């Protein structure tokens, strides 16, 4: 599978990664060669094989749906990682 430069720009936008023109060229080459390597898998007959997403077969694990108290100290520790805040809320650029 050979990707084009436009494909790379589309993927980067989907992934929300800003990339330069030089990066487009290098990722076009890298990703195409990796996708080509993946073609190996087409040789494997997987008819009737169920795909697995979880390896140890644990079923649903439940816990009580109870809110856990967070101390002021814990709250501060979390909020110190936020760039901008206002009245205890995280401030972001306007979406609309």
């Amino acid at each position, binding site marked *: 599978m050979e990707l084009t430069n436009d494909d*790379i720009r589309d993927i980067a936008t989907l992934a929300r990664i800003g990339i330069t023109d030089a990066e487009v060229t290098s990722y076009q080459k890298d*990703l195409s*060669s990796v996708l080509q390597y993946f073609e190996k898998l087409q040789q494997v007959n*997987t008819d009737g094989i169920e795909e697995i997403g979880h*390896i140890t077969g644990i079923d649903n694990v439940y816990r009580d749906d109870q809110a856990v108290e967070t101390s002021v100290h814990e709250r501060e*520790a979390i909020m*110190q990682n936020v760039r901008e805040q206002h009245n205890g809320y995280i401030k972001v*650029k306007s979406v609309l």
Partner: protein
Amino acid sequence: MIRDLHEKLVNGETTAVALAEKSFATIDTKDPELHAFLSLTRESAMLRAAAVDERIQKGESVDLLAGIPCAVKDNICITGTKTTAASKMLENYIAPYDATVAERIQNCDAVVVGKTNMDEFACGGSTENSAYGPSKNPVDPRRVPGGSSGGSAVAVASDEVVWALGTDTGGSIRQPASFCGVVGLKPTYGRVSRYGVIAMGSSLDQVGPITQTVEDAAIVLSRIAGQDERDATSAHSSDKKYEAYCVGDIAGAKIGIPTEYLGEGLDERVKEVYMRAVEKYKSLGAEIVDVHLPHTEYALATYYIIMPSELSSNLARFDGIRFGGVDGIDPQTVLDQYLETRGKGFGPEIKRRIMLGTYTLSAGYYDAYYKKAQKVRALIKKDFENAFETVDYIFTPTTPEVAFKFGAKGDDPIKMYLSDIYTVTANLAGVPALSIPIGTVQEEKIDLPVGGQIIGKWFDEEGILNAGYTFEINA
């Protein structure tokens, strides 16, 4: 090693403060060159060490890990420490909570001296992808230490600490352990909680120890293993003391040799060391049996679809808003904030893998890549189930070659990925695997370590630890 130091602490031959001071002195001497650490936690380490000494003086009993200096990979959260995962994306992130493994080792009074270097977000096999510069192999500093838990392996191999925690998604504990000549254990998927560990490939990730001896790996595993309600994938606890299973006898055990691992790509000199190790097991009374893992040749492609897919989802959370943000950008819109943060904050390999994962999960390609890979994964797991019907353990080289020189893999991602060829299968199948030093290969008059990998049945860590221990004490 840990047990000896513990005896000395309890007998009053040494103190925890002395051990911590020695650890920091070694770091001060060696780390300017080796760069195993991204940050040090001198103050908290010395406080904890002093507290341990006080408890011992009062005659209280302390855990085996108490007062022993250790290091933690920088993708594991410890309250109040910088936790960067070796990325510029997290340059300003201070962990507000403890990972379960961090909590458990600190409850044992282990003395954490610092956070270790790694490939960015655990993506790589050399630490060359660290945004803060690579670590160097103490055996030969012109060579990589392996990765991604390279800093942890270097810290242990160079005596900066006694043991360290790493994480392993496709070989990131075992490959650096092999390159640096130390012991590395990837437990069964689910054996150890991943709560508070920066996620890479969530169906593959495990935390495990890097140590100087197999018994030490067992001692650490006993203390970090067990179910955790904060990680729904963690398996039921057994409260095993794994060190008790290191008895040094494997007479009668069946060890499988997978022919698929011994073909093209394996360095002849590594193969020779490996074959001698196989003979050693035979002389220790193990029965050596050929086994087949027919889907091995598809494992790497399967891994490099599943892991980037999961990575791209996991790393979607890094938006520049919640985790410290990235310096030097001035976005005007929310979209620009994402694009600029992620464009600047992620290194080249991370961008490559996120884009790969985004593509393989995208509409129209999901079935051809991700779903197909999950089906092949089922077949790889089945290979192991079949093999373990006839053998107790599978023994392979850990890596196809010894530690390579910096830059040797160039910019070709596939070349670098091939380094993971013998280790990714254990993550795909979820089985536990232990890398132990089995000999050396001489190059430019330097003896470079070779690792052997013992793969076990699901949740049979005690079995592979005993197999590794038996080799080690008879080496």
